[in-house]
């Protein structure tokens, strides 16, 4: 091909879409963002119901720096589980790059494009494609490993059976978390897979356009898929339909994923970062001073908890490192730091986040007790304050002061 205007080497967004389809898509984006924001608001309102924490500004700079280094290096997640930590880095960086990619397209198409500023074409566009293809591949391979880990490797720390409940108790193994884990993995991997197949179908559909076809190897994964689909006899006429169907599947899955972030474990994207930001570096060695002039100094209701502890409870991803490190759990005592933190979280959710259906609750109940979503006294007394849980937690949960 000779001297093609490099402006033509790009991807035309919503190519051949009737205007109503584009309008429907934007409508869905607005709904998804609204659902997301409502969820964020609910969570923030929940944390605000806790007690105001000590002044965090004094050490803000140090903590921000520490958080950035910890997240970028993944040093906390790698500890005592190099494999899971390394694979999490693949998923994390894949996701971050794909997010930056989507944001770049928004910048081009919705923000700068209307002013006549174009940059998403030619060499930049091709490099962009290559990077995002590799990011998507990393994401999918990482997710496949996590699926294998959950179904075949089965590390004991991922078993949700609780030492603080009897097998006959209804909340013994928290089955809903297992369902959520798998829904998370499947949604994300399907977003990745549909994205690639969609990309391959587009190549076949536009195979006669040299500005697309001749540059297909800049998106190597899509090009390989296109070669396979062509080999299987997929022609341009069918590919255009496949592309449209997959476009919507991919789009709806991605928007659903975004909308549900604050309602599911996906929220750890934000809560884990937040928990690191507010983490007390001295949490183990110095317990917070109780004000003896107050009516009470201990926690009985969820609103007695410090705000940062409520945030930390939401950051837990059930990775099980604390569960594995805890000497009480290891020797059969009714305590798992993981399960105690999850109980605090579930208690906070029940008490402080009204559902869509019914607002309010039947008045505050104690966090301490033998009932559902309560922490038992035998659980708290099993703790030996060894700090193994707080020390290893990759998201900065401070189990020790919460317990004491």
């Amino acid at each position, binding site marked *: 091909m000779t001297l093609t205007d490099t402006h033509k080497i790009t991807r035309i967004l919503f190519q051949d879409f009737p205007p109503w389809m584009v309008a429907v898509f934007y409508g869905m984006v607005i709904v998804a963002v609204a659902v997301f924001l409502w969820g964020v608001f609910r969570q923030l309102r929940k944390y605000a119901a806790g007690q105001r924490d000590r002044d965090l500004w004094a050490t803000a700079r140090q903590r921000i720096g520490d958080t950035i280094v910890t997240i970028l290096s993944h040093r906390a997640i790698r500890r*005592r589980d190099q494999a899971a930590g390394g694979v999490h880095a693949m998923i994390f960086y894949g996701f971050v790059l794909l997010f930056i990619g989507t944001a770049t397209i928004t910048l081009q198409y919705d923000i700068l494009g209307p002013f006549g500023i174009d940059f998403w074409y030619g060499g930049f566009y091709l490099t962009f494609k290559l990077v995002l293809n590799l990011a998507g591949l990393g994401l999918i391979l990482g997710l496949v490993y996590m699926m294998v880990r959950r179904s075949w490797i089965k590390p004991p720390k991922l078993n949700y059976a609780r030492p603080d409940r009897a097998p006959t108790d209804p909340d013994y193994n928290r089955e809903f978390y297992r369902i959520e884990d798998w829904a998370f993995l499947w949604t994300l991997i399907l977003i990745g897979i549909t994205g690639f197949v969609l990309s391959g179908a587009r190549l076949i559909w536009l195979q006669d356009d040299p500005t697309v076809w001749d540059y297909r190897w800049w998106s190597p994964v899509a090009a390989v898929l296109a070669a396979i689909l062509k080999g299987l006899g997929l022609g341009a006429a069918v590919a255009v339909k496949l592309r449209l169907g997959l476009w919507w599947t991919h789009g709806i899955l991605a928007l659903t994923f975004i909308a549900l972030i604050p309602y599911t474990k996906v929220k750890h994207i934000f809560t884990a970062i937040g928990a690191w930001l507010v983490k007390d570096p*001295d949490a*183990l*060695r*110095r*317990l*917070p*001073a*109780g004000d*003896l002039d107050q009516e*009470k*100094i*201990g*926690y*009985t209701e969820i609103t*007695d*908890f410090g705000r940062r502890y409520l945030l930390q409870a939401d950051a837990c991803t059930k990775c099980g490192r604390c569960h594995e*490190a805890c*000497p*009480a759990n*290891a*020797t*059969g*005592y009714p305590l798992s730091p993981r399960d105690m933190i999850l109980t605090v979280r579930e208690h906070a959710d029940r008490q402080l986040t009204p559902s869509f259906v019914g607002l309010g609750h039947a008045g505050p109940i104690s*966090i*301490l007790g033998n009932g559902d979503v309560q*922490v038992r*006294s035998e659980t*708290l*007394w099993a*703790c*030996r*304050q*060894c*700090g*193994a849980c707080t*020390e*290893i937690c990759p998201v900065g949960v401070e189990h020790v*002061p*919460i*317990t*004491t």
Partner: protein
Amino acid sequence: MMRRSLVESGDMDPMLQKTLDAVNKSGNSFNESRRKRPRWAKDIGFDIKDARKEPVDVLWFVGDFASFDPRSQKVSKTFARLLHEAGVDFGILYEDETTAGNDIRRVGEEGLFQTLAEGNIATLAECDFKRIVTTDPHSYNTLKNEYPAFGGNYRVDHASALLKELIDSGAVTLPKKLDYKVTYHDPCHLGRFNKGYDPPRAAIAGTGVDFVELPRSRDNSFCCGGGGGRVWVPDPPGVTKPGENRVREAGAIAGLDMLVVNCPKCMTMLEDAVKTAGFEGKFQVKELIELVAEAMDLDEKAAAAAAAELIQEKV
């Protein structure tokens, strides 16, 4: 801060309640009279300075277990003789020391903790010293990290850090090379809490022993089971104690002679676990201080000094 509520409502093991009452009454968890606190220091061949009355370089905060527990009293005597031999200018608070309160606070008895802290801070304010040293990582932790919030700002070192310092400076020499296979148990309050992983290892290395790490060491150390007040509450029968889990880990090291501990509470818990888990006679639990004292030939030196004194008296 949930245990603080349990303490407020009295929802706790009766043994724990008894201990808290004892601390409240007598300032120590052994329910002993205050006068008995310095009794361990009587027959060591010299008088330990009274830090309340004269200035000292090192104020040794002894702590409850090191003062009253018979096994740890032996360690305290050894440490006193070691410091004496090394020429360290040190003293203790005698009857006026009360428990530092680390574990009282960790039980959740915040009010009692604050009373203890304020009491000790007032006592220490009357003394002239350069730094505090303690063999108990629990006391070390609270004196170093929790007392400042109540106005007590001191340089605080754990005994193992001082040992390393004395070895490095030549004040303590280790002429006797020990021929044991040993491993080391990191105390939670020294290791994970305060990152004191290396000084005890350096001191062990100086004794010439064959050192093997436990599989779970340093930040991944496995608790002896005695923290958070559990040293005062018996583990229920039929349940494995954390200490037993730990000594099995040590017992899996072929040819092990000694499990070296660095905390009076670990000593109590692990020595007990060695008995209940059936490792008695297979390996011993020893304090780091005892290991170093052996390599110093402290017993020989003490005997020689005593003999010299005797000769002088006769002359």
